[in-house]
C-alpha cells in the first residue's frame, strides 16, 4: 500500500452531489467561525461581569465569581461539552426537553450545546484577565472617581473598565484565538466544523497529508488574521501614556 500524493485533491469531486473537497473546507471554516464568534460574545459579556464581581468589595459576590472560575477551569473542556450535550438536556423540564431532543434538528442542538459550553468555559478565563486588568490600575483611580461622587457601577463603567480593557488586549487576544482552536471539540459531537471536514476529506480521498496540511494552513492564517485584527483594535483604542501589561 503506497501513498499517492495529490495536491490537486481539493478540486476533485467528493462524489456527493457536485461538491468538491474544497467546498467541505469552506463549509467547515464557516462553522468554526460561527461557533467561535458566538461563544466569544458570551465569554466576553459573562467574563467581564464575573471579572468585575471578583474585584467588588463584597465577599459573597467575589466568592461566587471565584467559585465559578475554579469550577470551569478545573474540569476538562471535553467533559464540560459532554455535560452540556448529553446531561443538561435530560435535566430540562419535560416539554422543553422534548423540543430540544426531537423538534430541533441535531445540528442545531449540537451547535447550541457547543456555543454555551465554550462561552461559559472561556468566560472563566476572560474573568481572570479582566480582574488582572482592573487590579493592575493604580489604586488612586477608584478613590479619585469615588471622590468625584460616582457610585460604584459608574466607577467601573466610566473609569476602571475603559482602562482595564485597554491593558488586557494582548492576553484577551490569545483567549480569542483559543476559542477558535477549542471550537474543534465540536467535531466530537458531530458538528461538521473545520476539523471534522478535514477528517472526512482524509477518509474519503485517502489524501490525509494534503487534507491536514490545508487544515493547518487555514488555522494558521486564521490565527494570523485575528492577531492582526486585534493589533488594529489595540492601536485604534490606544491612549498615549497609558500603562500596558506585558507590552514592549
Amino acid at each position, binding site marked *: 500500500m503506497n501513498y499517492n500524493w495529490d495536491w490537486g485533491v481539493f478540486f476533485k469531486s467528493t462524489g456527493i452531489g457536485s461538491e468538491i473537497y474544497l467546498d467541505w473546507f469552506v463549509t467547515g471554516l464557516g462553522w468554526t467561525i460561527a461557533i467561535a464568534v458566538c461563544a466569544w460574545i458570551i465569554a466576553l459579556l459573562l467574563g467581564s461581569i464575573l471579572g468585575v464581581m471578583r474585584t467588588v468589595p463584597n465577599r459573597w459576590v467575589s466568592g461566587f465569581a471565584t467559585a465559578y472560575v475554579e469550577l470551569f477551569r478545573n*474540569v476538562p473542556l*471535553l467533559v464540560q461539552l459532554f455535560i452540556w450535550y448529553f446531561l443538561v438536556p*435530560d435535566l430540562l423540564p419535560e416539554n422543553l426537553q422534548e423540543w430540544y431532543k426531537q423538534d430541533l434538528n441535531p445540528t442545531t442542538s449540537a451547535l447550541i450545546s457547543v456555543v454555551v459550553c465554550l462561552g461559559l468555559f472561556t468566560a472563566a478565563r476572560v474573568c481572570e484577565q479582566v480582574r488582572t486588568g482592573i487590579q493592575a490600575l493604580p489604586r488612586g483611580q477608584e478613590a479619585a472617581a469615588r471622590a468625584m461622587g460616582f457610585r460604584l457601577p459608574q466607577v467601573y463603567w466610566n473609569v476602571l473598565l475603559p482602562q482595564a480593557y485597554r491593558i488586557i488586549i494582548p492576553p484577551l487576544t490569545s483567549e480569542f484565538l483559543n476559542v477558535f482552536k477549542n471550537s*474543534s471539540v465540536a467535531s466530537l459531537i458531530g458538528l461538521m466544523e473545520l476539523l471534522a471536514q478535514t477528517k472526512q476529506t482524509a477518509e474519503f480521498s485517502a489524501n490525509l497529508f494534503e487534507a491536514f496540511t490545508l487544515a493547518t494552513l487555514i488555522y494558521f492564517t486564521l490565527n494570523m488574521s485575528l492577531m492582526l485584527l486585534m493589533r488594529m483594535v489595540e492601536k485604534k483604542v490606544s491612549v498615549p501614556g497609558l500603562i500596558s501589561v506585558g507590552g514592549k
Partner: protein
Amino acid sequence: MMDFSGIIPSLPGLWNGMLMTLQLMVLGVIGGIVLGTILALCRLSSNKLLSNLAGAYVNYFRSIPLLLVITWFYLAVPFILRWITGEDTPVGAFTSCLIAFMMFEAAYFCEIVRAGVQSISKGQMGAAQALGMNYGQTMRLIILPQAFRKMTPLLLQQSIILFQDTSLVYAVGLVDFLNSARASGDIIGRSNEFLVFAGFVYFVISFSASFLVKRLQKRLTV
C-alpha cells in the same frame, strides 16, 4: 433521579483509565520539557537559522488545535513509520497520542523555558564565562538550574493543563479516564452519573494540584 451506586463496581476499570491518563500526562510532560528546552536553547541561540526554525516550530504548534494534532498523528504516524522503516510497523493510538502531546506541549514549554532563561540576569552569564566556563557548561551548570527553579510553578501549571487535555484522546478511541467512564456508564445505562463522576474527579485533582502550585509559587517569591 441520579443513581451513583453503579460506580463502585466499576472502580477497577476507571482506575485503569486513570492510569492511562496519568501515563500520558507524565510521559508527555517529560518529553515536552526535554524537547521544549532544546527548542528554547535554539530560539535563544545566536545562530539565525536555528532560532528561526525553533520560532517557526513554536508558532506553528501554537496556532493549531491540539485535537487536530492528535487526530492527524493518529492517522499519519503509521504512514511515516512505514516510510522510515520500509515495513509495516504497528503503532497503537497510545504511541501516536504520546508523540502528539510531546511535540505539541514542547511549543508551550519552549516559551516558558525561554522566558525563564531570559529572566536570569546577564551578569550571571558573564560571571560563569569569566570563570572560564564554555557555553554548554554555563547553560547546564549556572543558567538552566536557576531558570528551572523560577519556572517550576509555570511548568506545573502547564502540566495540569495537559492533565485535562489528555481527555482529548477520546477522539481516537484510547481508553483514558474519561473514555472508560463513558464506556462503563453506557454499559449499565447510567452515562450521566458516570459523566458527573468523571468531571468531579478531574475537578478534585486539578483543583488541588493548582492549589498546591499556588502555595509553592508564594513560597518561591517570598
